[in-house]
């Protein structure tokens, strides 16, 4: 798409005090998000992460300090104009139920009085960008699934091509499997659009996965640490960060690497209609490590595993021969999520698929284990083992 890179978003001594409260909600926050990066604000509830985010588009006004976008103080820009120039995604999505998907996506362009033709073209372009069929343009939000609605929410936020996007727990309301896919999709999208994104979550794993940088906030709106995920995991700046990140930092380190960083295994692929005897011969010829062949449909989408017994007899292979339920992961899936999916399945092999569910290869628990022993790029490692933490 555009090579539009985001803008630098800088917080300078930003404080927010609500009237009638002693303790500030956000306390003297200073940090800058480089253009085109995802900065995740993470912390326990009451840490002021949402307040911090909402001060960027002036849904909440800071009491002190200033926030700038490419050097412009946001409080000097009329609120309505500012908000139209910043993408905004919320957890409950907040699509307008009375507007079609196309109209929902076109909301900001319409507010900006784009010409109707341009608005229409942009809506179509956006639906394609987030991977929704063009036919969805005339449907209403109530006719879509939760995941689809969330994608429309992202498309709507991108409509006027804003340099900055604010996302408040955008994947919080979706079930874990769909969330994983939406996260992957969003990362692929971000590779193309390169916005500056301020992303709020309470989930450390999501922060590690999504963030180029993580701002860990603690109660009272104090910035406990601001660094790359690898650095936060390797060198927590304080006891609070260490506790918040969790005792399983070794395991979380797995979130720093992705399936795409591994060498994938080549599966024995079987297609419906193939002679059973021929399929059996190929499976037997394969190495002992692979006891199963993968049945895929005509679009290269995995259907399920077949073993030697499934392939016994004569005739041709049938889709019903397969045992469905092979865990699928994507190149963007973190090794931690991949490992978790693999351990949950009987065959400890994961099927790696692309955005269109087409087979790319296999990933094994062993391959992940091997990767764990190798140093991760940008991750200085865990260093000396520490004493176990007492849990607060």
């Amino acid at each position: 798409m555009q090579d539009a890179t985001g803008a630098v978003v800088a917080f300078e001594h930003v404080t927010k005090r609500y009237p009638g409260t002693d303790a500030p909600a956000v306390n003297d926050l200073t940090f800058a998000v480089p253009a085109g990066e995802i900065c995740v604000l993470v912390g326990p509830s009451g840490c002021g992460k949402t307040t911090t985010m909402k001060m960027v588009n002036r849904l909440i006004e800071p009491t002190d300090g200033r926030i700038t976008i490419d050097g412009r103080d946001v409080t000097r820009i009329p609120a309505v104009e500012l908000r139209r120039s910043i993408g905004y995604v919320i957890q409950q999505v907040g699509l307008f139920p009375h507007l079609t998907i196309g109209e929902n996506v076109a909301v900001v362009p319409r507010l900006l009085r784009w010409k109707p033709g341009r608005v229409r073209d942009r809506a179509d372009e956006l639906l394609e960008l987030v991977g929704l069929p063009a036919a969805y343009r005339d449907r209403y939000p109530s006719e879509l699934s939760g995941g689809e609605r969330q994608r429309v929410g992202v498309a709507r936020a991108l409509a006027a091509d804003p340099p900055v996007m604010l996302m408040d727990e955008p994947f919080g309301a979706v079930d874990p499997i769909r969330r994983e896919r939406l996260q992957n999709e969003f990362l692929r999208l971000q590779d193309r659009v390169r916005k500056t994104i301020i992303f709020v979550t309470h989930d450390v794993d999501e922060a590690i996965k999504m963030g180029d940088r993580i701002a860990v906030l603690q109660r009272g709106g104090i910035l406990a640490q601001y660094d790359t995920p690898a650095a936060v995991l390797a060198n927590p700046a304080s006891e609070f960060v260490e506790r918040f990140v969790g005792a399983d930092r070794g395991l979380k380190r797995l979130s720093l690497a992705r399936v795409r960083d591994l060498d994938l295994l080549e599966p024995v692929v079987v297609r419906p209609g193939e002679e059973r005897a021929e399929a059996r011969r190929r499976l037997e010829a394969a190495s002992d490590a692979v006891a199963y062949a993968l049945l895929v449909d005509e679009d290269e989408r995995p259907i399920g595993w077949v073993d030697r017994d499934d392939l016994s007899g004569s005739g041709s292979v049938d889709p019903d021969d397969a045992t469905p339920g092979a865990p699928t992961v994507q190149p963007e899936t973190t090794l931690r999520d991949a490992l978790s999916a693999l351990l949950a399945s009987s065959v400890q092999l994961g099927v790696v698929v692309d955005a269109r569910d087409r087979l790319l290869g296999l990933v094994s628990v062993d391959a992940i284990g091997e990767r764990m022993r190798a140093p991760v790029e940008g991750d200085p490692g865990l260093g000396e083992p520490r004493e176990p933490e007492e849990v607060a």
Partner: protein
Amino acid sequence: MTEDAPFFRVDWVVDNLPEIGRRLGEHLTMTVLAVAIGFAISFALALLIRRRPGLYGPIIGVSGVLYAIPSVALFALLVPITGLSLTTALIGLVSYTFIILIRNIVTALEGVPREAIEAADGMGYTRAQRLWRVELPIALPVIVAGIRIATVTTIGLVTITTLIGAGGLGYLIVNTGIRRFFDTSTYTGVVLAVALAIAADLLLLALQRWLTPWARAREAA
């Protein structure tokens, strides 16, 4: 009922079609005027309540008292002030719509999902744009439901206004019917009033469906 006076005299209806039509027209006009004026005032008051929620109690209280006054008594109180006129009839009719319409509009606006409002604010709608383009369209089904109740109630009440000389189907029921012991006229008036109420209700329902195709999509989903 005797052999000379059948239960229902179709010939009278046929002979008096123009008169019946005129009364029906009067009835309809008064209903439309009362509901339209009532809605305009209620809408303004509901928006006022939105700005100052403290006013909800007092406004609903006064509307409730107005609603509680028996209609005959209300008209009797108004006649010395505004006379035997259409104005008198309308003041009474309009005041009865308040409690239904104000409460409905306020509830409808409160029922707009919070996240839709937050999204609208976050995307840079002005307050007025948010009201007209987001909140009111979403609130429309509930608002129209209120208008339907107000309309049906008003059609019933309009029959009383014949007592202060305002005409309408009440004229057929009371003046040429009950007072002259002429049942055919009474029945004609009653049947037409009921038919008018049903027709108006269905028409408004159709209007609401037409205006809110998205609400049907939700039902289907």
